[in-house]
């Protein structure tokens, strides 16, 4: 079997996910035996254009990004969204909570019109995405698992169940028992419950599970002492793009 050619691309992001890919090599140098990397700007100069698998990091934040995305989609047989920015919009989408003009002027002042920008969005808002590797940043081991699944022609093994499952299986003390807050019950697992394990509530970086009981989650947060605004703010840290419409609807009510 010839090695599949893969390429990495980045849009608005911190490049932490690509860095995590580089990190994955520390323990999985054999990744390089299994795939041929033809483009990875962060780590190499060569630029091959004959890739079959495209890993895309980052959100689409300006109209000119779209053309680049279309081009990638046209070439790649498989497009994988790498990390929360690409999968959800991530922290980039926090700016969508403010009027766009205000955001531009706040940062660039009277030079605002020099810099192109629009509402930050996940990649699948622009092109079809075949698989996602969630997380901010992605989980090293999950990245490797997904690569292996792609090699096998299997569905990527990204869990659909909530974080509480992993957290409980690790036997962590639940943060709600410590008087803290956590989005674990509505957030997709797969990170090994890394935040609760380190004493901090899940912030939802892996996105919501398929049928989250958002109302019950808000009730739980309220009972734990958050105001409605605070509870909503917790949802928006990484999922603004997903929950914003619903927030607007609810406010209208």
């Amino acid at each position, binding site marked *: 079997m010839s090695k599949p050619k893969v390429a990495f691309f980045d849009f608005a992001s911190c490049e932490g996910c690509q860095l995590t890919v580089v990190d994955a090599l520390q323990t999985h140098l054999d990744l390089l035996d299994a795939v041929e990397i033809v483009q990875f700007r962060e780590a190499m100069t060569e630029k091959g254009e004959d890739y079959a698998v495209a890993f895309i990091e980052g959100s689409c934040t300006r109209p000119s990004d779209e053309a680049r995305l279309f081009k990638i989609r046209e070439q790649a047989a498989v497009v994988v969204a790498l990390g929360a920015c690409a999968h959800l919009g991530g922290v980039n989408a926090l700016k969508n909570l403010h009027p766009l003009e205000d955001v531009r002027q706040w940062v660039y002042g009277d030079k605002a019109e020099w810099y192109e920008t629009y509402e930050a969005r996940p990649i699948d808002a622009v092109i079809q995405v075949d698989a996602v590797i969630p997380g901010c940043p992605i989980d090293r081991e999950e990245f490797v698992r997904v690569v292996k699944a792609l090699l*096998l*022609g*299997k*569905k990527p093994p990204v869990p659909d169940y909530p974080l509480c499952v992993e957290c409980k299986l690790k036997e962590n003390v639940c943060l709600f028992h410590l008087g803290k807050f956590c989005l674990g019950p509505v957030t997709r697992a797969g990170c090994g419950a890394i935040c609760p394990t380190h004493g901090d509530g899940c912030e939802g970086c892996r996105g919501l599970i398929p049928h989250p009981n958002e109302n019950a989650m808000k009730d739980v947060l309220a009972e734990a002492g958050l105001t409605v605004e605070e509870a909503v703010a917790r949802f928006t840290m990484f999922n603004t793009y997903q929950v914003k419409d619903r927030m607007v609807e609810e406010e209208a009510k």
Partner: protein
Amino acid sequence: MTDSIYVPEMARLVDVRQMTTAEKLFTIELPGGRNLGHDPGQFVMVSMLGVGEAPISITSSPSRSNGVFELCVRKVGDVTNAMHALQPGAKLGIRGPFGHGFPIEKMRGKDVLFAPGGLGLAPLRSLINQVLDERGTFGRVIILYGARRPEELLFKDELDQWVARDDVECRVTVDRGDEMWDGHVGVITTLFPKVTINPRNTVAVTCGPPIMYRFVLMELLGKGIPETQIYLSLERRMKCGVGKCGHCQINSMYCCQEGPVFTYAQIKGVEEAL
């Protein structure tokens, strides 16, 4: 042999036949040509190592085993995709047979009405062929088979033989025909008015997609067949096949152990069953 119930035995794929665009027929031989020793309606857990495991009904009849058995598999996901990529000679893991199949002894002397829909013919075929091989011990044999389109009909050669036989009343229908199709058109339930039966002496056997059950059951009950004489084969997610993993539970019943064949009486009113 292994001492773990979860570890498959590596069997050899003897033959693969494309049946429709989505389904293939796999002929499989256990090590040493050992007989699988199954009852009609039982299933095996098929392992594609590295990919996973899936329950698949044995479609061949125990009466025709010849040291091999057959599976008719639709390509829908990981395991079935991997199976469809196999070439004859390949190895695949088999555990089983598991579950309770059709109680053929209880059917002897009775009229048997088969009502498979689509891929539902796969599990029923093992029973149909055994009944036909022991034809003398049964009353009437009626087969009402429906598929969505002519090209989705399974086991076409056998269907033709059944239709041709004098001792079998076999009718086939498709939801939508095409220019080549000169048979019956309509959903499977439109075949029912065409047969008259003696309900007391008839056993009905059906298998198909969940939506089909509701309508077929209405017909069967409408014909007066007792609930204890209607058999269905149900599909559930299964991770062990041996009554442990919990996925296949229908209320208190483990589909893999008590089923996959149930009488309508067993599942009637069970909200989770159909």
